[in-house]
């Protein structure tokens, strides 16, 4: 099992949970397991082509999966997958 860290903007789609346990041998499988458990997260993470949306960054532990093997990146037990969308909030 891997731990998926849910960003604040997606927490309404996971029943308020900030971390979700999900099984899978690679990052894509882990994220698919997340979207099966919490279907409302699916369109936020994946485009119609099944690829990760470009505005969503995904990290395995502290490394961007784009510089690893993308969704194919192998996941071990105890790994953390971080979902990170950009935030603009600053001043107002």
């Amino acid at each position, binding site marked *: 099992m891997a731990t998926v*860290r849910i*960003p*604040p*903007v*997606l927490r309404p789609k996971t029943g308020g949970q*900030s971390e979700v346990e999900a099984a899978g041998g690679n990052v894509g499988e882990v994220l698919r397991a997340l979207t099966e458990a919490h279907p409302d997260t699916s369109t*936020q993470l994946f485009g119609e082509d099944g690829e990760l949306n*470009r*505005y*969503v*960054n995904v*990290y395995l532990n*502290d*490394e*961007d999966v784009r*510089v690893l093997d993308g969704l194919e990146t192998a996941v071990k037990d105890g790994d953390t997958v*971080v979902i*990170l*969308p*950009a*935030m*603009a*909030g*600053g*001043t*107002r």
Partner: protein
Amino acid sequence: MPGTETQVTIEEIQPFEAAEEINGGDVVLIDTREPHEYQEAHLEGGKLVPPGLLGDEIEGAAPDKSARTILYCRSGNRSAIAAAQLQAMGYDNVASMAGGILLWQEQGLPVVSTSGMTAEQRERYSRHTLLPEVGVDGQLKLLNSKVLLLGAGGLGAPTALYLAAAGVGTIGLVDDDVVDASNLQRQVIHNTERIGMPKTTSARIFIEQLNPDVNVVEHNGRLDASNILEVMKDYDIVVDGADNFPTRYLLNDASVRLRKPVVSASILGFDGQISTFVPYEGPCYRCLYPTPPPAELAPSCSANGVLGVMAGTMGTLQANEVIKLVLGAGEPLIGRLLLYDALGTTFTELKVRRDPECPICGEHAEEVPESEMGKFPDYDAFCAGAGGDR
């Protein structure tokens, strides 16, 4: 213990010999005087270890007991005593500089002095100048630095507060908003009396009361493609606390063109992010976020709410990054994104790499000719549907 120094042999060297060794490098230079003497004038690179604190502080200042270690004081007495003490502690390559800093200066050798600072400044910044990482040199760098704050609101308020207190010589403030009662839960440089006043003016009043050394420049308006290069060109560092994506991308692209570092943070709810983007040294904002998210994934603080103290936590981290960049000290957050979760009180660090395909700073990014410098893409169209306040 008078007489101790006569019972052991210590090496004494003349100032010109010390200067040659210091210039050659690989020397640990220790100033064995009191803090107020050190602050007035010291040798460049000299680390302050007052005689009364020798036993406690020498290992921090000179961890390697076999390294060449040169001690000096005012006239050569205290450094000779200290040299004997260090030998007894196992330091085996110690010398005391004869005649101290007085003879050194008499011979026309250079010192770092507070001559650039007034008596009032020496007092005001004394807790800074005591730090080896800051010192008088560093404080003078801060006093000569020019920092532009994008936004005088949630993040800008605490950043401006600490940069002003630190003596950053010029602080520019860009904001087109006026102070509102709903700001005061986090925007600590504004106050109830100044509701309705332009934020840049309210901030200037606050900063001038805190520190008269700071020159505040008000840019009461919004940055856009037509004015950003003109506004940014006179500043050394930009602090990004913008509330919308078009401005963040515009700022990024302009800062890469002008090669100016940007300290960028954002806050929402109980979460914050911060990174430091130094063009071509590390990734830029577009390497991290190539495209903005749609509105439902990027609510604004005014729609979603934000814990007031989050602005303080992330804003003061921004101020810390700015000060390190000015001083050239420590490890800025270049290529690192720091996430802060205030509910769990946890920090998470993620690696951010330069994207070779980045359209702005990547390998294939085209050099922008002088005639095109002020021309930028249509960011509102690029960010259409994206979140943020505008």
